[in-house]
């Protein structure tokens, strides 16, 4: 996929370019905001890795101009400045994700993968760990063995798949799975999670409990 790297620091830009190229993407690099703006007008990139601190027009402005045009380009903002404030401002302007410099390679790759997955939902079933999940057909199999899930267990599984790498709070799960009229016992969510856990944990995935808060989906050898 075509990726534009907008970064004025040559060391970091070289690293990013090499990494993404090795991952099999077509990578262009520009070192300032003006060129980034032109490149984004000329080419339909799937992803732009956008630094905020640029020598001419800053990354926010490039982002603002990009979002004024109809485009499906995903934006991963890199910031070395006031992390939280830039994050909020970037997301307000339509960035899809952010990373604060410095970041680890695995973190960067995970974000890029997640963003690219958005643009291209591969047809057919998803493979997560040892699970094969066919969302269309509502069918799951663990290591080739079919697993029967109830409607609520399906909904729960989809919640986890929709937000990979995020901890889901019990409140959030309750809100998504049940309507306001339903009276929930304090341990209702725990019960559903442990049922789902029992059914799929053979398949190279794990639902980890974050004590006092919620659950985190983990998959191995993904």
């Amino acid at each position: 996929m075509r990726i534009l790297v907008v970064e004025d620091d040559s060391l970091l830009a070289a690293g990013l370019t090499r990494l993404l190229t090795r991952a099999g993407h077509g990578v262009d690099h520009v070192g300032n905001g003006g060129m980034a703006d032109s490149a984004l007008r000329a080419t339909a990139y799937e992803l732009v890795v956008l630094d905020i601190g640029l020598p001419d027009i800053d990354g926010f402005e490039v982002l603002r101009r990009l979002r004024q045009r109809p485009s499906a380009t995903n934006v991963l903002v890199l910031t070395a400045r006031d992390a939280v404030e830039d994050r909020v401002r970037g997301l307000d302007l339509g960035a899809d994700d952010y990373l604060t410099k410095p970041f680890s390679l695995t973190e960067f790759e995970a974000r890029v993968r997640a963003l690219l997955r958005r643009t291209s939902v591969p047809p057919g079933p998803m493979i997560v760990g040892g699970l094969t999940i066919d969302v269309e057909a509502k069918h799951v199999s663990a290591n080739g063995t079919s697993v029967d899930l109830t409607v609520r267990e399906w909904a729960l599984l989809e919640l986890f798949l929709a937000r990979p790498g995020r901890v889901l709070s019990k409140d959030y799960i309750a809100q998504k799975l049940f309507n306001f009229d339903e009276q929930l016992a304090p341990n209702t969510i725990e019960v559903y999670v442990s049922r789902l856990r029992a059914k799929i944990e053979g398949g190279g995935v794990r639902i980890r409990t974050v004590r006092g808060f919620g659950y985190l989906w983990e998959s191995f050898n993904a």
Partner: protein
Amino acid sequence: MHEAAVPARSIRRRLLVVLIPSLLFLVLCGGALTYLVALRVATSAYDRSLLDPALDMAQNVRIDADGPHLDMLIQAQEALLYDHADEMVFQIRDAHDRVIAGTQELAPSPALKTGEPDFYDGIYRNQPVRIASVRSGSGIYVQVGETLHKRQRLIWEILAAELVPTLLIALVAIALAWTAVTHGIAPLSRVREELLRRGPSDLRPLSEADAPLEIAPALRAFNNLLQRIRDSSAVQQRFLANAAHQLRTPLAGLQMHLEMLLRRDLDAEVRGEVGDMHVATLRASHLATQLLALARAEASDAHAKDAPRIDLRDVADAAVQRWVQRAIARNIDLGFVLDPAPVTGDPLLMAEMLDNLIDNAIRYTASGGTVTVRSGGVGAFAYLSVEDNGAGIPEHARNRVLERFYRVAGTPGDGAGLGLAIAKEVVDRHGGMLDVQSAATTGTLITARFPASAPDVTKPASS
């Protein structure tokens, strides 16, 4: 006037030290002057009435063969010499200075030779007396004396009539001066109270709006000083923020290349060295991040009246996503007990504080340990706390862990000793307290307490 003891360099005391003796001196001068005037008035008034019996007696001295003698009935003498207040005496001497009538106990007049009526002070039976004397043509000399009671009473009455109001005026003047000074320095008291209420880093100018003319220049000079301090610390913070920011991009590049290198098939020795470089880079990155956080905390104005109301529970909620993966990577059970904790403040700084507390807890707790984040409200306070069951902070270091760049000797890991300093700075900015409890066996509990946000919490509380 709230203080029991007026401090040594009190304006009021100095005023009184000058005012009381001056007023006292003036009152005494006035009293002396009045006394002299009163004496004069009393003397001239009563002298005239003392002369009359002397003249009467002089006219009633007859000279016959036996020589001069007083031709007057004893009743007439008594009537003549009666006085309701004073004792009166007389003496008549002939030309040879022999006493021919009256008391022996009056000395002859010192002005015996003159012919005019004369007045002078004398002594009669050890009492001071005022004496009027006349000498007739035939050399007869008459003295009439009276004690001084009514004269003295008159003098005292005049004195009292003058002194009492004068003293009252003096007292009122002192009271007015005291009140005026109290009123005059009231703006200073307000300034003092405002400064006492402020946090350690609140450098906003003081209001000059209702300052009196005399105090305004001092306030202006003080605000000027505050401004200069603000400017220079802003320059310093900007420098720190810029330096930290400028460091992060090259560090990001370095870290990225090292991590790419570590993915290659390296021989063990090279891998070890690159690994060390990687750790050093992470450490430098962490330091740059913390310096930036510190500069940001220092530059903030969390005391601002428009600081939003936030819930520390939300701050902790948001931290979950940032820390769970890192805790898992270190095999630490990161848990949460979150209840609503409403406060007024800067959510970004609060997040920065919590990040540093969690980072410390995870950093200094061994694999398999437990870290628990709590939020909640107790009475007038809302709190955010992070507890671990790590090694604890040695007792000798507990007072110093809040200092910048202080690291407990022998601590493993790559911390810079800024985490708690950042937390402290944020807590200070919000008028809160940072409490560190630690024991070698049970680990460390760090609690940040803030005034709970209640209606009107931004208005100065009456103390």
